[in-house]
């Protein structure tokens, strides 16, 4: 079953002299439970691609189907709801809400949806990600690696259709990076989540089921990783 399908995605920034074609006719699809790594040099269009998949930005042309729904055909209000139920984000800069503690940060997407969090599942997430002890800490009391683990837990909390991670290890040292990637891979497999991750690190790309290479706005498939 295809969770994500992109059709001829194009994105152009600016106009006239300063026009930049960030993405050119990108078409690919992702099945449920797959782990996709996106690699490519800086400025190649990786982040633009991820932003379009997550419906953060609108494409110049082309379509994105997430869980069978045409994302850009939705109205803003519908999209907000769709986003909180079906897409989980993990950012390079962690992006936790500073005034909420670890647990609140994790269940925030559920609270925004006025749903009652399933206590057992949240406890399990905290356990799996090694955050049980830190449940009541505020983000600034945590290390970078811990903060990123909270962000991963937050992305998993709603059991979304797809998790998008934009260089989740970009701000971490190698030891922490490895831990985070391992945890991500493990939790994604455990909860059968679909994950699309941008990375600069070829080693981490090799964890993935498939690797997509972006260069000058053109996406090519590099085939499977090590596995």
């Amino acid at each position, binding site marked *: 079953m295809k969770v994500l399908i992109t059709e001829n995605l194009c994105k152009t920034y600016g106009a006239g002299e300063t026009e930049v074609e960030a993405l050119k006719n990108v078409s690919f699809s992702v099945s449920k439970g797959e782990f996709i790594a996106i690699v490519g040099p800086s400025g190649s269009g990786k982040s633009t691609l991820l932003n379009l998949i997550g419906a*953060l930005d609108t494409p110049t042309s082309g379509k994105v189907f997430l869980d069978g729904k045409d994302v850009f055909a939705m109205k803003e209000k519908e999209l907000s709801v769709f986003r*909180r139920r079906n897409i989980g*984000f993990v*950012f390079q800069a962690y992006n936790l809400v500073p005034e909420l503690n670890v647990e609140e940060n994790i269940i925030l997407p559920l609270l925004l949806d006025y749903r009652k969090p399933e206590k057992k599942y949240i406890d399990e997430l905290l356990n799996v990600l090694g955050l049980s002890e830190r449940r009541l800490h505020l983000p600034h009391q945590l290390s970078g690696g811990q903060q990123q683990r909270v962000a991963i837990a*937050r992305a998993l909390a709603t059991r979304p259709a797809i998790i998008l991670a934009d260089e989740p290890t970009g701000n971490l040292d190698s030891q922490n990076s490895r831990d985070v990637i391992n945890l991500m891979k493990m939790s994604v497999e455990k909860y059968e989540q679909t994950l699309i991750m941008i990375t600069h690190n070829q080693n981490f790309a090799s964890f993935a089921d498939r690797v997509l290479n972006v260069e000058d706005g053109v996406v090519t498939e590099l085939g499977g990783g090590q596995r």
Partner: protein
Amino acid sequence: MLDALLKFEKIQVIHDYGNFHIAIKNASEEEMQLIRSRIDVQNAGLWMDFGKALINGRECELGALDQNFAPDMNVELTEGRYPTEKNELMLEQWAMKDLGLEVDDRVNLSVDNGTAKEFVISGAYADLGSRKAAGIPGVLLSVSSAKELINIEKNYYLVLFKDRVKIMKAEAEIKKELNIPDDRVEHNDQLLAVIGQSTNKTAVGIYQTGAILFCMVLIAGIMMIYNTFNISVMERIRQFGLLRCIGASRSQIKKMVKREGLLITTKAIPIGVIAGILVTFLCSAILKYFNSSLFGEIPLFNLSIIGIAAGVTVGMLTVFIACHLPAKKAASVSPINAVVENIGIKIFKQKKRGYLTKIFHVETAMGINNAFMKKKTLFLMSCSIAISIIIFLGFQVFVDFMHYSLKTTKPYTPDISLTSEQGLDNLYGKLSGLSGVKKVYGRMFGHVDATFDAARLTEDYKKNCRGHSKNQ
């Protein structure tokens, strides 16, 4: 504070002019009866003015006043009792002393029309500043005896309405019901002005100035709160973007910012109210103790429910208005702002040619850039500064205005006048020698009764005269 000052003004005005709202000239028994029985009338009493008379040969102001209205006209019995019998009268305390009289003494009173009669002093009442200063004592008769003594029908029926009565409306009703023409109704303009029920021009002017100042303060408040809020929202664009990423809808973010404002207000309002009360208390205390002769009667503790309620409402209103736009702005943050920075700032020019860094030192150039490149910040900052200047100037005008209205601007207005009927012979030399005295001058005047042909006055002149005397 305004409320405290108004209360103080009210006390002053009552002290100077008496505690009545309107007066009906030459009211008949029936009219008095009907007015007194009205539900909105708190007190009413008859006041008769007989003008000048002689008491034991000394000039005095003769009048009569209903006992029930005496306290409202600042007539406070200090000795003896209120005159009730036909041959009784009451005198100011200082005059008793001056004339060497005691309660129960007999005095001779002669009136303009030649009638002279012996009276018994039934009591004395507290000094009235203006009369004492003029050196002419006030003599009060009982209303019943006054009617028999003098047959000049010149009386005023003084009416004090209850609190919160719409006086203009009540007055119109009385006029209509009793068929009283306009020129038989006089107003205590000063009191009406202070309690905000006057149509008098000066009073309305003061209220208008107040309203304009109030609006300016409101606008300044809104601008300031808006600015602060805007900056706090701008700072958190990334966070709002993030919240949108993890699924917050626009209305949720809007609500969030508004709740934030409301919460801050609930904290700020009690602080503001308490601080306001303290400042009012402090100002009153300063006025009271440093200038006790002028402001001695200002109330020290003055908790005005209306004032506090107004403060709270204004606070809520400003925050409500001031939060609206930033909340909208926060809601319109695109989720992409969580990943991409600096999208929210509008910049004047599409391209930068870098002239500034060539002309100025780099710190000047960057200062200019920062001030002018961010449109919104530039606009808001200039507005705030402009408004504070406007308020400053506005208050200055207001203060000047108060200053001028309190003090005449004529250069010959004396600071101190010494009055004597005997003449001040060698005082001139002594005073001129004092250090700090700029000018000393003397003047004399006397009263002469004169007659003229009233028929020769033009209509315009009469009209002006009447208007003038009314405003006095």
